[in-house]
């Protein structure tokens, strides 16, 4: 058995923080992505432009740099706002940064998924006299998920791995806890291997779950036909 | 049916090497499905053999077995006197490739290389398989393009050509290897009706040159005109064969009769 030298609890706490961060960013990021996709289909040009700017910038700048900007920039902004030194919570900054990153990629996934809904479905909804809100809620969104699922799955796997970056600004996640353990025991090989193993475990579980979800979505389609 | 002694004589007598194709008792099984149940066939030099049959009768599989795109389960094949497929045993990859270079295959779906121009498609194999100099290969390709009527399309990509033009380019590609035998796998089945004629015209001109050809086709009138031997496949076996005039006028097998009337009933020839 691997000797954790008493750091087992700490690593478990870190792993829990990692998952908490990832799930929080996923939930918020999906909302941002949906709004982004709607913005990209907006009738107003300025909103479309803004959405384009958002996705282009976020996808062209390293995630680490975005985290640094939000963390240190946030600290400076809060300090000016309150007149005294305020340090931004690493968890909040981290979730915020990952939400922004995830949201940008999810915007593109949702945009493509909405486009994949056959236009005949939308025309049928219009012919039935459905209101715009009803049309989105009853026709487009339910069908869009199936097309969005594979892309979102990929983004989730990326998100899970990107949480490790928040350790750089001090979030006590799996990565940070293993770094501390590796530093104090002078055994980085073991501890980073454990971290790698845990991340691999999370991604593998996610893959199994995603395959199952995709199969469910496909089955729904076959029944619908 | 050949006896075993005739068979062994066949392998040693040099004059036999002039026979372009000889197949004995070829069998192919996919899982538990017998697709070919023992086909024997001989093509003399200059023979044009048409292979007819309803879909699923194994005629395409037969062609694909000849150039070993499918590995036959059993049987023997001689190409230009060379024994390439012995009972249950295939030659080395080098032998297989040498055999394939002697057989020109024309596919139903053309299978031109989409990122190469027509000319590049034609000179690719002569340069890299036969080792011909590029200049010479280009010269010969130009002649072939003239022959199939595509001289002005040499620098076009396959996607920019019509189906008929693509199939003619594919024929030129097969001819560039100077094959002993040409195998046509339903060459006009994927074409729009108005494009069938131009491809058949090219195939007919090749027959007139005295090339040895095996043609799997649904074009009964064409098969009757162009071939000197017709074979009818049914469920992986040769049901009936003979000279086309004889065969079409007085079909003996009830299945071939049925096939003919069904085809004519559809208004084909």
């Amino acid at each position, binding site marked *: 058995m691997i000797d954790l030298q008493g750091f087992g609890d700490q690593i478990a706490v870190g792993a829990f923080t990692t998952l908490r961060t990832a799930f929080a960013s996923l939930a918020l990021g999906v909302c941002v992505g949906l709004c982004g996709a709607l913005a990209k289909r907006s009738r107003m040009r300025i909103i479309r432009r803004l959405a384009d700017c958002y996705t282009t*910038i976020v*996808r*062209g*700048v*390293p*995630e*680490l*740099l*975005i985290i*640094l*900007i939000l963390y*240190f*920039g946030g600290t*400076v902004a809060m300090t000016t706002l309150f007149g005294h030194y305020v340090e931004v919570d690493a968890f909040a900054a981290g979730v915020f940064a990952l939400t922004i990153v995830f949201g940008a990629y999810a915007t593109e996934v949702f945009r493509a998924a909405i486009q994949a809904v056959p236009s005949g479905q939308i025309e049928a909804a219009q012919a039935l006299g459905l209101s715009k809100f009803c049309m989105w809620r009853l026709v487009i969104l339910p069908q869009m998920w199936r097309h969005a699922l594979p892309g979102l*799955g990929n983004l989730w*796997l990326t998100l899970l*791995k*990107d*949480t*490790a*970056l928040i*350790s750089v600004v001090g979030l006590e996640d799996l*990565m940070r806890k293993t*770094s501390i353990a*590796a530093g104090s025991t002078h*055994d*980085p*090989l073991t501890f*980073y291997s454990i*971290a*790698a193993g845990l*991340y*691999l475990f999370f991604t*593998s579980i996610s*893959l199994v779950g*995603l*395959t199952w979800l995709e199969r469910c979505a496909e089955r729904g389609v076959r029944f619908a036909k | 049916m050949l006896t075993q002694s005739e068979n062994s004589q066949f392998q040693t007598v040099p004059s036999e090497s002039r026979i372009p194709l000889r197949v004995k008792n070829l069998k192919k099984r996919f899982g538990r499905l017998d697709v070919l149940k023992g086909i024997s066939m001989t093509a003399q030099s200059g023979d044009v053999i048409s292979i007819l049959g309803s879909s699923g009768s194994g005629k395409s599989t037969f062609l694909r077995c000849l150039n070993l795109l499918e590995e036959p389960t059993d049987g023997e094949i001689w190409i230009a006197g060379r024994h390439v497929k012995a009972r249950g045993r295939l030659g080395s990859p080098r032998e297989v*490739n040498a055999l*394939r270079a*002697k*057989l020109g*295959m024309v*596919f139903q779906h*053309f*299978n*031109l*290389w*989409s*990122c*190469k*121009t027509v000319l590049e498609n034609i000179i*690719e*194999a002569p340069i*890299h*398989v036969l080792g011909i100099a590029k200049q010479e290969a280009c010269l010969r390709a130009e002649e072939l393009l003239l022959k199939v009527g595509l001289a002005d399309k040499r620098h076009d*990509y396959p*996607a*920019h050509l019509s189906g008929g033009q693509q199939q003619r380019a594919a024929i030129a*590609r097969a001819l560039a*290897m100077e094959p002993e035998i040409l195998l046509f796998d339903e060459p006009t089945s994927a074409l729009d009706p108005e494009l069938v004629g131009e491809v058949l015209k090219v195939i007919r001109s090749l027959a007139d040159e005295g090339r040895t050809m095996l043609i799997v086709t649904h074009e009964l009138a064409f098969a009757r005109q162009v071939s000197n031997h017709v074979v009818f496949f049914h469920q992986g076996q040769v049901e009936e064969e003979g000279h086309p005039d004889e065969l079409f006028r007085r079909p003996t097998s009830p299945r071939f009769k049925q096939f003919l009337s069904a085809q004519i009933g559809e208004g084909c020839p």
Partner: protein
Amino acid sequence: MNLALMVDVLPLLCEGMLLTAQLTLASVAIGLFIAVPLALLRTSPWPVFSHAIFLYTFLFRGTPLLVQLFLVYYGAGQVEWIRSSVAWSMLREPFWCALITFSLNNAAYTTEILRGGLRAVPSGEVEAAKALGMPYALRIRRIILPAGFRLALPAYANEVVLMLKASSLASTITLMELTGTARKIVAQTFSPYEVFISAALIYLGFTFVIVHLFGRLETRMAKHQKRAEPGNNSQLRARTAGIISASQKVAP
């Protein structure tokens, strides 16, 4: 916002940019060099190879790059035979650690992207090559690889941009590339907005250059595609994109 400061730090950041460019280009080049044979073996009919290579890509794509980087940078020194070998003189240097990790990571992703492209090559085109007597190696070199590359190009362009972004992790092992330089300047000037945003703009510029270059390469390579009926071609592209994005995932 202090524009004067942004102008001031630009030369310093550009120095960091040089190291970022070096790391990115070298990792992409080495990654591609490793990925081509691996992708071929991954699609080969021998299960021993395809399984072993799948394990490699699974490990590298299933764990964060940061963990891999720390494992190499901090962990390699613990292994006795590495310490006593010639490689140790390299693995002591953060630059080489970063380059090795990035190259292996990039190779893993590129292998799967190329595999998707190779699988999308129409089987008829491969059969035509077989039927003309082209041996396996020749088929790979003249027919399958060129066609597979074309099909994988859009996904590969994405991967190169991701590598550029991933190179920022080198700053965590003391390398003074663009992000590292920016962090150092922020620690001295306490003005994160100006410095980090300048750095972000440089990254954006670099991303645009990469996207533009690949875009030009794609249009040049797309000349063989159908002009008259764009619908047909876009269908093929959609199919290919589907195959490739499916292979993007950690598992098949």
